[in-house]
């Protein structure tokens, strides 16, 4: 038996909010894989649980006409990972949530809960940071949107008020179109493990401005023709630059973070420049504040932060360029 006083099965988001507002001891339960474990350990006992488990409108993934992805927060990890839109638009998000717990936990735990519990170790956290996801919070006085980069206040603390429900996670087309990415979770085991560190790097490559017209890959055709551009992509990685880059971490600080300074430093650099790997590893260290915990020391986390950034960057670049880049950068 769980130590709760009252239980309410909300029939709609509005219904859930009304119950949360009416009872100051009420909190939200969705998938239950965090809330119930916390109750079992004696934390937050004796209150009311308002369940949003059975509200259909909070489930599933959709895409709006402008390309914005709308993720229902009550979508469980396994449904998210196999969703066709997630697989085609943001595959690294699906891969990240495939590393949560084990299969049964992924059938129960939800993406919204992963965000709202405010854990820096949440497996979706690093990826969400790089996606500039916007969170729609609905409360008694209406709804508001909060960028995920401003969502976290501290360990286990977010800007979500107790009587607010996360009703949608929005990812705009400009934040995923043209990007490739990679999430790397470091843990001692491959399953049933909380991340010691999580790192996501996403890149968007494009032709270098000075190369357009006389780059090494363009001798066989005009630069405007998309087919020729494709050939250039495959044949001439030298002429590609990093048009955009996003670096996100979990467990590298008390909350999930982005490394904006390092991103600015790498933006515009040549994709085939071997020094980008040193640069990323070196500069991310200035933007993180890892701590020692029983899982790992601060020093070990710093090593992971640098190394995982290099590896994730390489993976992201490889997905973008194909293996032709491997020979040129493996020396670096």
């Amino acid at each position, binding site marked *: *038996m769980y130590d709760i006083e009252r*239980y309410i099965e909300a029939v709609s988001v509005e219904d859930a909010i009304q119950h949360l507002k009416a009872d100051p001891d009420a909190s939200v339960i969705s998938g239950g894989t965090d809330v119930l*474990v916390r109750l079992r350990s004696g934390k937050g006992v004796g209150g009311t649980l308002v369940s949003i*488990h059975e509200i259909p409108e909070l489930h599933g993934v959709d895409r709006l006409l402008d390309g914005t992805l709308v993720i229902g927060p009550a979508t469980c990890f396994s449904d998210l990972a196999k969703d066709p839109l997630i697989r085609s638009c943001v595959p690294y998000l699906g891969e990240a949530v495939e590393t949560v717990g*084990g299969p049964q936990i992924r059938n129960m735990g939800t993406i919204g809960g992963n965000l709202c519990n405010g854990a820096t170790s949440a497996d979706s956290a690093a990826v969400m940071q790089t996606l500039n996801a916007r969170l729609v919070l609905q409360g008694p006085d209406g709804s508001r949107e909060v960028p995920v980069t401003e969502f976290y206040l501290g360990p286990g603390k977010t800007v979500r008020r107790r009587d607010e429900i996360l009703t949608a996670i929005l990812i705009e087309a400009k934040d995923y179109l043209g990007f490739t990415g990679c999430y790397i979770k470091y843990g001692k085991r491959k399953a049933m493990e909380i991340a010691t560190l999580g790192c996501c790097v996403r890149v968007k490559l494009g032709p270098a401005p000075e190369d357009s017209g006389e780059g090494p890959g363009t001798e066989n055709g005009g630069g405007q023709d998309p087919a020729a551009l494709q050939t250039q992509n495959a044949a001439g990685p030298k002429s590609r630059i990093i048009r955009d880059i996003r670096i996100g971490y979990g467990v590298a600080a008390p909350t999930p973070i982005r490394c904006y300074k390092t991103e600015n430093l790498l933006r515009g650099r040549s994709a085939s420049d071997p020094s980008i790997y040193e640069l990323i590893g070196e500069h991310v260290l200035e933007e993180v504040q890892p701590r020692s915990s029983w899982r790992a020391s601060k020093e070990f986390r710093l090593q992971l932060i640098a190394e995982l950034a290099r590896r994730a960057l390489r993976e992201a670049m490889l997905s973008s360029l194909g293996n032709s880049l491997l020979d040129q950068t493996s020396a670096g």
Partner: protein
Amino acid sequence: MLQIINMYVNGRREELAVDIRESLLETLRERLNLTSVKKGCGVGECGACTVLVDGVAVDACLYLTMWAEGKHILTTEGLKSPTGELNPIQQAFVDEAAVQCGFCTPGLIMTAVELMGKGRKYTREELRKEIAGHLCRCTGYENILNALEKVVGYPKEQGGE
């Protein structure tokens, strides 16, 4: 506080008065005497309490009974055929000596039944990932994988089913 709930357990409709604080694990074991559902860790780490809810494997210890309203629950007791034969996956566990103390077995069987329901085949590596939510402390994983492979894996050289 007791509340009435209707659910289908192993194909039978059950109308029960349950405490709102109950986990599905407690309801199945204590009210319906379905003791194949084992209580191990109680926090979703060991998988001993795995049951299928509408065909999906969940840890019954972290599943509130209130969520089961109108749903179909399947436990190992529900696998027996009307004439008493074992389900193919149960038979495979017997044949491959995949059972030692037996505590993890019903949970693993239910995960296997979920996999059988997906109508596809799995490589050994995929099967390892699929059973990652189960702990076997007799460490009989190799035999468990052999049993799973027999039913949902790719056929071996001899070209079995």
